[in-house]
């Protein structure tokens, strides 16, 4: 949705190096070291994946790696918990459909 640039207690958002991640083929700017989920929510991505059977949209729920609602395909590997996985420059992130596609490796 938006970054909190100024905060009454935490102060201004510290400067941070930028990295670029590819989200469904589009470049998205992220802060170095932040979690993928934070970058995607800041960029306004409405949902991260769709469920296996009913194709329902999902995004974060627990935000701390416990519920697996936020999983996506990251650099070709499905079911990566984006709320506890940090961005890397050039990382390829895809909205995951169902339980994901291992690209024929399995």
């Amino acid at each position: 949705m938006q970054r909190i640039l100024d905060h009454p207690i935490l102060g201004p958002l510290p400067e941070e190096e930028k990295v670029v991640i590819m989200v469904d083929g589009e470049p998205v700017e992220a802060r170095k070291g932040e979690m993928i989920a934070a970058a995607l929510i800041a960029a306004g991505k409405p949902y991260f994946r769709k469920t296996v059977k009913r194709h329902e949209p999902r995004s974060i729920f627990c935000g701390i790696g416990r519920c697996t609602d936020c999983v996506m395909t990251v650099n070709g590997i499905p079911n990566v918990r984006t709320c506890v996985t940090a961005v890397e420059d050039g990382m390829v992130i895809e909205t995951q459909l169902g339980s994901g596609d291992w690209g024929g490796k399995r």
Partner: protein
Amino acid sequence: MVERDIVVIGSGPAGLCAAIEAAEAGAKVLIVDENAKPGGQLFKQIHKFFGSREHRAGVRGIDIGTLLLKQAEELNIEVWLNTEACGIFDQDKVWVVRDKHTSVTIHAKRIILATGANENAVNFPGWTLPGVMGAGAAQTMINIHRVLPGQKILMIGSGNVGVIVSYQLLQAGAQVKAVVEAAPQLGGYGVHTAKVRRAGVPFYTGHTVLEAKGTDHIESAVVVKLDAAWKPIAGTEFELDVDTICIAAGLTPAVELAFGAGCRSVNSPVLGGLVPWHDETMRTSLSSIYIAGDVSGVEEASTAMEEGRMAGLSAAQSLGYLQEKRYRTRFEAINHNLLALRSGMFGQKRRDAKKAIVAASKG
């Protein structure tokens, strides 16, 4: 196999204090935590603490966290981050996975579990829609990641977590459209509730969320009034324009490792449900395993810290690191603090619940 005197699982306030107390006594301590940063929930708590006056009330959680990390560093406590504890076997071996791929078994003379708690969910049609999340998730987003999960928030639950996170969402620049509470009365400490009220946020007691609407993301919420039997009253529904619903419906102790190891359980509804049985030194039914903090019953960061100290002290003592006299003095001091924290209107209930756990048979 790696060998250590004491392995602490979890680096929240309970785990850090346990490690510090045990290291001060001379034990060789290792802390493991699955996160990339230590501190557990502490660094999300940007508000001043409640609790007893003598007890760091008025200090912000983040500042306490910084202080504890400094102490741990000065004591040369070893910390393995990005390390998930997956199981405990033979009562003294902890199986961990480091950096998501390296499996290590740690042989520990004593294990202290300080794994915290998980947030409870509330189910209603639409609760799985993106934009519906735990209040803790929203708190993590705003205070740790500095990202607003939404602009227009509905909070479910008026307990401390509900009102504290509501206030922090306001501080972060969001609008909090309402706080709904199913019970007929509000649940949080007066100071925190008052701050949210003063900001003009309406509180609806005796209300709940009937439905979250939206297709790819929540677009609105339907709220309804409840009768005395907590049944929705037809005709009282109204719709709120929100893009986020936060659920603050309590926490459940993260007991998986403890029960997997074979610790006996006790049911304590006041403290969040099934918890590992423990005595007042925080030892479980397995003599090499101790617990502290939310995993032993959900309370507050201040009690988690004291319980951590108690567990660290007792574990070190059981390994022969402390003279009886020194142990007694520390034990009395920590116990005194715990009793003070468990007094007053809210504290008494927790004090009684803790007593009941200790009194239950070891099994």
